[in-house]
Every structure is written in C-alpha cells, then in structure tokens.
C-alpha cells in the first residue's frame, strides 16, 4: 500500500493538515494497514473542523470501501462498508421501498462518519439519532475483527465515538419500510422568534426544521420559515444538477449586505399564506449537495459552523445567543433552528432534548472571538456544542459538556491503548487524556 502525502482540510477549510494518506480499496488492505501502521480512519471529511484531520500524522480514507454487503429486502436490514455515502444509501433503500431512518444535511457524508458522529436529521424529535438504528457493527482491532451490538460498552463508546475505538469496517442498519416517491413539504413564514419557536414546538410533522434569518433586527428578530415534511408516494425525481463553485470566492461574496439581500429573497420565496410542494427526496434531505464545493463561497480562509444544543428549559438562553449572533453582524445565510428529542446512542453523542441552533460564520479574528464567547454562553446554560462542527473550543469546557466522557475514555483507552486513532480534534480538546 502506497501512501500519498497531501494537504487536506475539513468542510470548513479553516483548519488544514499535512500528512500521509492511505486509501485502501479492499477490506484486506485496511486490515493490513491497521496491523502494521494504525491511523485514524476518515470518511468524506464533511466534518467542519479538525475531527477529520490528523495534522503531521497518517490517516486512512474509507471512501473506496463503499459496498453493500447484505440487503435483506424483506426485513430492511442492510449491512454496508463504512465508506458508502448516505446519498447512495438513500438511493438503494428507496429502490426497495425503504428509507434510511436518519439522514444529516449532506449525502456526501459516509456511513462510518454518520456512526462516529451519531448524526441527526430533520426528524430527530421523532426518529432519534443515526446510531439508534444501527443493529450491529464490526470494529477492527489489533486482535482481529470485533462484532459489537447495542447495549455493549464498546458499542456505546463507538457510536458518536469520533473514531477513537478503532476503524469501523462494517455497519448494519435497520431501514424503515416507506414508499417515498418524494417529500411533501409545507413551508410557512413566521414573523419573529416567538412565532417560529411555538410553530416548531407544536408541529406534529415527522420532519420539522426552521430556517432563521440571522440578519433581521428589531421586531423582526428571529423571523424565518418553518419547514414541515413527510414522505409521499407521489414520484418526483431530481434533475441532475452539475453546478460547481470553481474558485475560492472573493470576500465580497458573503459580505453582510449580500447576505441580507439573500435572506430577504429567501423569505419572499414563500408566499404569506405558505405553500405545500412535493420535492425530490435528495433535494429535501441534502439541499446544498446540488452545488459542488459550495464551501468555497467563503473564500480561501474558510469558515466555521457554530452549532449548539440547549436543554428545553433554557430557550431563553438560546434566544440571547441568537440575539448575540444577530448583533455581531457576522451572520451567514444558513442558520437553522430545530427542536431535538432525547435520542442519542453513544456516550459522546451530541443530541439532548431541547433546541439546536446552527450558523455559519466566516473564519477570521472577529468570527472566532464571537464563537468562543457564544461557546461560553452555551456552557453556562448547560448546553453542548457539536464536535462535528467545532474547530475552536477548549478541552475543559467540552469535557464538562459531555458528562459521559469518562465512560467513553475508559473504553477508548482499552481498545486503543496507544491513542493511535487520535485526531486533531481529540488532541486539541485533550479528549484522550494528555497523551
């Protein structure tokens, strides 16, 4: 197996790493690599910060291990290699009358990445997290493959476990039997924060999420669009779009006035009385995937995503955090508010019952200072930040936000005593101790 020395980054492109990359095309090669030179396994690098970086060290890419190993079309159980993309999983599941029960906002992410971050989707309040639908998985260890099942200590440490228990070589997922020809989406406008929040809180919909305008001030603060959806049997197929952002955009592209215009236009798309449409499943789950490399819109220096979740009872604190984002003027067009259920499947899983807010912010001193201040507010309110998005937090704070960190660490250290799978993120946050 040859190694390739490369410079690479996560989706936010604000942090970069240089190191050797291997990309096994076969399971036997992955096993050989792990036996001879263990290194963290990365998926599609759709995490924003350094969760998917190993600066100065080696890393193994899972992207060519992307096959379906078993698909029981009677029961909907599917066993796959970790590099299978979620877009592929969606396509294959639908072809047999099933749906993946949980999908995040990009179909480029891999199944391995979805497990290691225990990702959530627009239906988290109903369906829980990705890991809750994993019925078994295979981890590679120095002593060979290890089959894990829900409830086992190593399973709890692997789901949402940031890859620290070792390479995930196969994943078994219980799909949901659904005839989804398209998604029936209802969009309604909400005039301000209170309207938005109550609409989300009362929504009976299977999928419910709000797009929130982080530029509107005064009485309009917190205005946005609530999107509620459910699968429908009506068929809608996505046109194949081939848009690509070819270059790093100049600073102007997402300058505040441009963002304000974009937001106003986005809001105006939806008529006052709201609208209901059937849209292709891909466009619903992965709205931005039609534009390849859209992260380049933020220019060469990249961007960050601030994402937190606060407990149900601290909605007031979230309102204040959102207010601070609006005040900072660092807003991006992509701010998302969602109610989360309690569902989570691992010690280090992000979700908690409450409210999650996500907002993109251009990299640079102003943005980074602002994000760190927001992090303090999140900690204060008993919330947590999402490690799939983070590039800036401090270790002590994050360890306090994840109360099961010690349980996770015990398992990670047992399965990977030399911290061979440590990444930029686990070192920055000293999640594996100070080793």
């Amino acid at each position, binding site marked *: 197996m040859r190694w390739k*020395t490369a410079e690479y980054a996560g989706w936010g492109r604000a942090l970069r790493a240089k190191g050797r990359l291997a*990309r096994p095309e076969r399971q036997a090669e992955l096993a050989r690599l792990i036996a001879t030179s263990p290194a963290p396994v990365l998926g599609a690098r759709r995490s924003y910060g350094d969760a998917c970086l190993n600066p100065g060290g080696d890393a193994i890419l899972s992207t060519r291990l992307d*096959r379906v190993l078993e698909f029981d079309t009677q029961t909907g159980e599917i066993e796959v*290699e970790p590099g299978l993309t979620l877009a592929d999983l969606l396509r294959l599941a639908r072809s047999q009358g099933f749906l993946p029960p949980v999908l995040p906002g990009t179909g480029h992410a891999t199944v391995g990445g979805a497990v290691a971050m225990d990702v959530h989707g627009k239906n988290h309040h109903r369906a829980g997290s990705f890991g809750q639908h994993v019925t078994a998985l295979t981890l590679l260890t120095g002593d060979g493959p290890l089959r894990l099942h829900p409830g086992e200590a190593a399973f709890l440490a692997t789901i949402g476990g940031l890859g620290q228990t070792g390479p995930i070589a196969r994943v078994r997922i219980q799909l949901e039997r659904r005839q989804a020809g398209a998604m029936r989406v209802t969009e309604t406008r909400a005039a301000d924060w209170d309207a938005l929040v109550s609409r989300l809180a009362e929504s009976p919909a299977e999928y419910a999420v709000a797009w929130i305008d982080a530029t509107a001030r005064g009485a309009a603060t917190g205005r946005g669009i609530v999107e509620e959806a459910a699968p429908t049997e009506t068929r809608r197929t996505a046109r194949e779009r081939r848009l690509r952002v070819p270059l790093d955009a100049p600073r102007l592209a997402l300058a505040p006035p441009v963002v304000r215009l974009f937001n106003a236009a986005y809001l105006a798309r939806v008529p006052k009385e709201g609208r209901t449409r059937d849209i292709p499943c891909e466009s619903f789950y992965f709205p931005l995937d039609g534009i390849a490399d859209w992260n380049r819109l933020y220019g060469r220096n990249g961007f960050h995503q601030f994402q937190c979740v606060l407990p149900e009872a601290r909605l007031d604190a979230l309102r204040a955090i959102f207010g601070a984002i609006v005040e900072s003027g660092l807003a991006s067009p992509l701010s998302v508010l969602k109610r989360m259920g309690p569902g989570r499947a691992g010690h280090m899983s992000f979700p908690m019952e409450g409210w999650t807010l996500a907002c993109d912010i251009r990299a640079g001193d102003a943005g980074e200072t602002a994000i760190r201040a927001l992090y303090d507010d999140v900690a204060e309110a008993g919330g947590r930040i999402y490690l799939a998005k983070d590039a800036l937090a401090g270790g002590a704070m994050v360890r306090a936000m994840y109360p099961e960190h010690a349980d996770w660490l015990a398992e990670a250290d047992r399965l990977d005593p030399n911290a061979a799978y440590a990444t930029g993120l686990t070192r920055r946050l000293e999640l594996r101790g100070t080793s």
Partner: protein
Amino acid sequence: MSETWIVLGASSAMGRALARSLAERGAGLILAGRDEDDLAATAADCRARGAADAEIARLDIGDPAGFDDIRAMAGPGRVNCAVFVGDMPAQDEIDADPALIDRVMRVNLTGPAQFLTGLLPQLSEHGGTVVGVSSVAGDRGRQGNYVYGAAKAGFTTYLSGLRSRLEGTGAHVVTVKPGFVDTAMTWGLPGMFLVAPPERVARDILRAADRKRDVIYTPGFWRAIMLIIRSIPERVFKRLSI
C-alpha cells in the same frame, strides 16, 4: 433475457466500477480475480444494485488451466467479457529483477490473450462484446515504464487483430486506453495529472460498448495528448525525460 458479463480483474477499482454500472442495468455477472473475499463483497454489492446474478470465480491469469471453468460459468450463447487485469511494477524494480518482465507480459498480455482466444468459438457463433483495457502507455515507449508499455502495446495489437477476426460474426471488440485513473495503481505516485475517477472510465466503456466503438481513449482528451506524443520524431523523443 439479461446480458451476461465476465469481468476479469473485478477487484480493480475500474473493474468494480464497471461491474456496478452493469449491475444497475440488470446484467448477470461473473467476477474473476485472486482476492476472493473482495470479489464476494463486490458480488453482494452488485446484487443489491440490481444485478440479475453475481457469481465469483478465482482467476490466476498465469494459470490457463483454470480458464475453461470460468468461461463455462457464462453458459452457452451470447457472452460478454471485460478484461481489467493488469500489473505495473516500477521500472526500477524491473531493472533490479528482469525476471519480472515475464510476469508483466503474462498479466497484461499473454494471460488475457489466452483467455480471450479460448472464448473465440463462442463469440463467433453467438456474438457478444469484448472490452480489453489496455493503456495510453502502449502508444509509445517511455523510459519510465516501457516494459509495461510494451505489454500493453502487445495487448492493443492483439485486440485489433481479434476485432478484425470477429468482424461479421456479431461479436465486437472495444479497445480501451485509459489515461491516468485514480486507483490503487496510481495512488501516491509522483507526476500524476488529470487523474480521472474510475466511475468516469466505466461510463465511457459502457457507452463505447453500446455504440460499438473500436478504440477509445478515456477520458477522451487523451486521444489528443497521445496524438501529439506519437507524432514527436524518435530523434527528439529519445531526449525527452517523460
């Protein structure tokens, strides 16, 4: 009835990509190579993607004794075969161990040629498509990999003769000359440029097979690049360090 394809070297990235595309068209597949665990995984994947059937076969291209069994798996009638087996040791490894030249010739030329020659009767009687993956490296001997290039040049010539031999029988031969493709063979090699994803190559191959093209370069711009490279006079070419 669905078409049946024998894929030699189905454990290569390009072979896997072609097998998957064929699976989505509902083909029956016989996947051959040495890494049987890997082939089994690809077979399962192809079944999940819609293949009428996907079986695996152990193939050592240096051992023609096993060829009959694989050819028999396709059953009588129309048959299609795509050859991806290949081996490209570094030129300096070959310089250090000239015996490697035998292996390069066997894997890239004589093995595939023997397999296809054994398929001749069935092809000429019932028709079918042969896809032979050669390489731009066969278009001119470069100091960097001329042994591999010589083997591929031989394979290209073999395919050209086979095409002519089968003309009028309902069987057709496509010669495929990929440029640089993003596979295990090229991962981490210095000097790579314009590297194409294997899925792109698979798409070009299927289109060429459907349209009964004779010789394709993939991606297509390699035809122009190789036209230039072939037209450089030998007296100049020998001084170039490419």
